[in-house]
């Protein structure tokens, strides 16, 4: 009932290549990228990307939006921690969306952020499927954004 992460290739441990499937209205949390490079290409539909500043260390207020854009089919985007944080969402109520993601080096945990307070929380990321096979959920811990 939320977007799925489907691993396609793990590049001998050097990168993770995955396909994300977003239903209507599905969106991610605000999250960082654990010091990795992150490339994203839209394969189907549209995804809105909202960039945020890192919250202040002592910050206890609403996070600052830097910019937002809607990425169309075949468009690419790149982000890493020095650029900032982002939220990705399928804002369509009629069309699903599909995106291709490349992370190098691969990472399986990141931080999600509460937009209202800037508080962060570490999460572990899981896959819905790997190499075409459904991954059975073994942990009850929260999924990450992507």
């Amino acid at each position, binding site marked *: *009932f*939320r977007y799925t992460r489907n691993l396609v290739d793990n590049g001998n441990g050097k990168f993770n290549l995955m396909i994300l499937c977003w239903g*209507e*209205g599905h*969106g991610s*949390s*605000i999250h960082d990228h654990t010091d990795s490079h992150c490339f994203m290409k839209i394969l189907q539909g549209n995804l809105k990307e909202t960039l945020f500043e890192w919250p202040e260390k002592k910050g206890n207020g609403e996070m600052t939006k830097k910019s937002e854009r809607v990425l169309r089919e075949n468009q690419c985007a790149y982000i890493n921690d020095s650029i900032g944080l982002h939220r990705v969402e399928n*804002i*369509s*109520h*009629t069309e699903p969306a599909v995106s291709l993601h490349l992370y190098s080096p691969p990472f399986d945990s990141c931080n*999600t*952020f*509460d*937009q*209202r*307070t800037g508080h962060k*929380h570490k999460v572990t990321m899981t896959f819905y499927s790997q190499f075409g096979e459904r991954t059975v959920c073994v942990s*009850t811990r*929260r*999924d990450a954004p992507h």
Partner: protein
Amino acid sequence: LPAGLSQWFPALEVLDVSGTGLAEMGTELLSLPCLHTLLAKNNRLGGPGSLPKGLGQAPLARSLRVLNLSGNRFAEVPPALLQLRGLRSLSLGGNRLHGIPPEIQELHSLEFLYLGGNFITAIPPELAKLPSLRYLVLCDNKIQSIPPQLAQLHSLRSLSLHNNLLTYLPREILNLVHLEELSLRGNPLVVRFVRDLTYNPPSLQELAGRTVKTRNVPYAPSDLPESLVRYLSLASNCPNPKCGGVYFDSCVRQIKFVDFCGKYRLPLMHYLCSPECSSPFSSASQSSTSQSESDSEDEASVAAHRMQKVLLG
């Protein structure tokens, strides 16, 4: 839709006429006995002829399982739609709905309901009478409050409420034991303690009703006028576990913050039977009141731990 559709394709099970500029769907649909999926998104439906008359009597009323009317121009849920008793999945996302009719409860097989991206301002409590509802999407609307009856949706797994006008949630939301996902971002949820100071003292009728209920005074329908029997049946239990009292109309609204697994603090609205139940500074023994407050908060926190994927951020 072309005339003769059911003659050429009598075994049709899935029909997708999305993005065709369709403004109405007529009687051609009524004689498709095997149709279980109808996709008609991104069209110009919404006016009077959008769904054919006599839909309730057609085989379609029992056979149709999936109906997608997203991206059209519906300003209200068409009454004909509510006759599709076999419907499991309904999408009216991205239309122009201002409300949800209470008759929605007639779609008693509904498991998936997508109403995101409309102009809905309120949710009828009758929505809670859908026993199989698992996935409810109400994001991107203008909803100001959630009726506490929604906690009766025992099958609910996923509730999407992001981008609305909610300032708090009813405390009963913690009773949704199977709820795994809840999205709340983009709502003006209060972050500080809020106390409703306009407490209207209870009427004599209410005080009598409270006494009857809390002291278990026996009564039979023959003892009282029907209106009072009904009134007594509407008593709500004070959620303060140390209180055990009831209230009818006169209650104190208080927002308490419930901690979700140390991650988020959600403002939940509590209805308490009197200021003595809620006030931490009452003339009654301070320690006992604060004890009861923290007890009910612990109880709420335990319930909150069950909800695993609260997507507030």
